[in-house]
C-alpha cells in the first residue's frame, strides 16, 4: 500500500520558489535599470 503524501509540502515549496523567483527577477531588473540610467547620467555630465 502506498503512503499518502502531504500535499502541503509541495504547495509551500512551489509557492516559495515561484514568489522568490518572481521577486528576485523584479528586484534585479529594477536595480540593473537604475544602475544603467545612473551611469548614463554620469557620462552625460562629464
Amino acid at each position, binding site marked *: 500500500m*502506498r503512503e499518502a*503524501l502531504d*500535499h*502541503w509540502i*509541495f*504547495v509551500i*515549496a*512551489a*509557492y516559495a*520558489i*515561484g*514568489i522568490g*523567483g*518572481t521577486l528576485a*527577477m*523584479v528586484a534585479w*531588473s*529594477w536595480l*540593473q*535599470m537604475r*544602475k*544603467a*540610467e545612473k*551611469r*548614463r547620467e554620469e*557620462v*552625460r555630465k*562629464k
Partner: protein
Amino acid sequence: MHGFANPTRFLRLARWLTPLLLVSGLLLSGAVLAYGLTAAPAERLQGDSVRILFLHVPTAWLGMGGWTAIAIASLVELVWRHPLASLAARAAAVPGAVFTAICLISGSLWGRPAWGAWWRWDGRLTSMLVLLFLYFAYLALAGAVQRDGGSSRIPAIFGLVGAVNIPIIHYSVLWWNSLHQPPSISAGNSAMAPEFLIPLLIGTVGFSLIFGGVVLARMRALLADIQTEARLRRKAEAA
C-alpha cells in the same frame, strides 16, 4: 508604430509605466496567491495540490507568451527595422525564461503528488523544457552580438525560428499521449469551476503586468547602456 520608435518618447512613457505595472502586478498576483494558499477549496481528486494551479498556469502561459513576444519583435526588427524592436525582444527573454523555469519547477512539484512522478519525458513537459533551453540560447546569442558587435538580425532570425516550438507546446497534449491534462480553458469555454477560474484569470493579469513591467525595466537598462557606450565612443573619438 514608428511613433514609438523615438527613444525619448519611449522613455517618457516608460518612466511612469514601469513602476505602475510592477506595483499593480505584484499586488494583484500576490492577492491571488494568498487566496490560493488560504481560501481556495481543495479539489475532489487532486486535494490541496491543486493550489499550485494559481502559480503554474499563469507562468506557463507567460513562458509561451514571452517567446511569442520575441517572435513578433523579431519580425518587426527584420521587416520594419524598428529601433526598439531588438531591445524589446531581448527584454522579453528574461521574464520569459524565469516564468518558464517557475512553470517547470512548480509543475514538477505538482506532478509528484498528482501523478506519482517528478518528471516524465512526454510531449508537453519536454517541449516546455526545450523552450527554457531556447531562452538560454537566445540570451547568450543576443548578449554575444551586443558584446562583439554582430548584426542584431542574427538573434531576430533565431527568435522567429524558435517560435516553431510554441504550437508544439500548445498541441502536444492533443497530438501525443500525455500524463498532462488537455487544456481546461479555451476561447469562451472552460471546464473549470468559478472558484478556480476567476482567481486564475485575475492572477494571470497580475503576472502579465509584472512581465510588462520587467520588459520595460530591461528595455530602459539596455537603452541606457547603448546610449552610454555611444557617448563614450564619441568622446574617445573627439579626444
